[in-house]
């Protein structure tokens, strides 16, 4: 009999979050971010959290909501270029920031979930990122040692999910969500569509339910588009 991860809603899903915790949040830009949980974090008013997220949202949306309430003590990200308030807090020293290469961020989260405490990567060798890190040559090429990342809570957003915690993501909304699901001590999944057990094809599941501790049907996803780029139907080029 499968193990149920179903909780009633975002309140239950986010219970136990405390000030000072380390949180992972899936998404790339505003694509595939856990909107419901972010709103709940604002509502709960948790403070001094460390957020591990590829980006920091935009002013007033995504993690930007937590930033404007000064709820974040430290950000671990790879790219934060879309957020003026972020840049202001960082340059003024209000916000501690650890910028790391995107591939290393993804791999470090996966490593955290996979019981790999550390690995070598060429990314960042010879840069600020390598400062204080072990350097070792493999086949004549220098690599740096990167360590695993884990989190007290990981928040991911999926397209479909079931009570067993199995998740399917849609298109490029997958991004960091699967690795962060692996790396959370408590992983919370909000889904656009909660389907009956057995409806997901076991061959098509991206994140096995074993990595998810709590799942709920999300509400009112805004799914804001950051850069709406289109071809006009007239020219069709």
């Amino acid at each position, binding site marked *: 009999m499968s193990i149920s991860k179903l909780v009633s809603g975002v309140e239950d899903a986010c219970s136990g979050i405390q000030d000072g915790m380390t949180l992972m949040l899936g998404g790339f830009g505003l694509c595939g971010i856990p909107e419901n949980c972010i709103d709940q974090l604002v509502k709960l008013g948790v403070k001094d959290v460390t957020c591990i997220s*590829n980006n920091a949202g935009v002013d007033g949306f995504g993690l930007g909501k937590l930033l404007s309430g000064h709820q974040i003590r430290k950000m671990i990200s790879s790219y934060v270029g879309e957020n003026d308030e972020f840049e202001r807090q960082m340059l003024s020293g209000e916000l501690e920031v650890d910028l790391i290469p*995107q591939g290393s961020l993804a791999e470090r989260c996966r490593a955290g979930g996979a019981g790999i405490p550390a690995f070598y990567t060429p990314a960042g060798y010879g840069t600020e990122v390598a400062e204080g890190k072990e350097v070792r040559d493999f086949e004549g090429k220098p690599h740096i040692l990167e360590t695993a990342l884990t989190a007290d809570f990981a928040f991911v957003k999926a397209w479909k999910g079931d009570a067993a915690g199995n998740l399917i993501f849609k298109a490029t909304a997958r991004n960091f969500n699967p690795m962060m699901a692996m790396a959370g001590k408590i992983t919370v999944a909000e889904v656009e569509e909660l389907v009956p057990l057995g409806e997901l094809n076991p061959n098509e599941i991206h994140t096995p339910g074993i990595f998810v501790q709590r799942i709920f049907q999300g509400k009112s996803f805004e799914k804001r588009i950051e850069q709406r780029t289109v071809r006009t*139907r007239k020219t069709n080029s």
Partner: protein
Amino acid sequence: MLDKNGIATRIAQEVRDGWYVNLGIGIPTLVANHITEGMEVEFQSENGILGMGPFPLEGSEDADLINAGKQTITAMPGAVYFDSATSFAMIRGRHVQLTVLGAMEVSANGDIANWKIPGKMVKGMGGAMDLVASADNIVVAMMHTNRAGESKLLPTCSLPLTGVGCVKRVVTNLAVVDIKDGAFHLIERAPGVSVQEIIDATAGTLIVPSDVPEMTM
């Protein structure tokens, strides 16, 4: 002198049949528009798609389908979506044959800086550090000089580095410049640009052969 689309057009000539290509934000993105018709090339976007297509028709954009520049896109037949760890497995594992990205500075030994101006601008490196540390072919697309008119091709970079000794070729509004043995090597002039103009705009050591052909566009 080339405009941004001109730089992209020239870089498109670097692309070979059967290559997977990662294009950075800005000028590099434009390269996709100038690939020779019928060439088998697939564009990888590090946020999780291979086989990226053109922008969607108005009204059919999907918030869940974007490129690394956060722009709404489409998928070509044969496209595939994947997670960020798999995406950088492709990049770090050298499965992507060409990376085109912008830069704030490039040095004569192939160093590149494009992610940070201390105390002023900190956008982050995104995937650039993984890309430049891994790719065999790294082509930089940028203007030859900055807004203040200062050369971006320097003896050594003054800004925090993105990668060391990795850039093989730079295509600017003025020239195609290769990097080897610690020096810039002038390969081609942009249409209507003199060798002297390029020499004047290049701060790092520039090796100039007796004959410098003009780009064929």
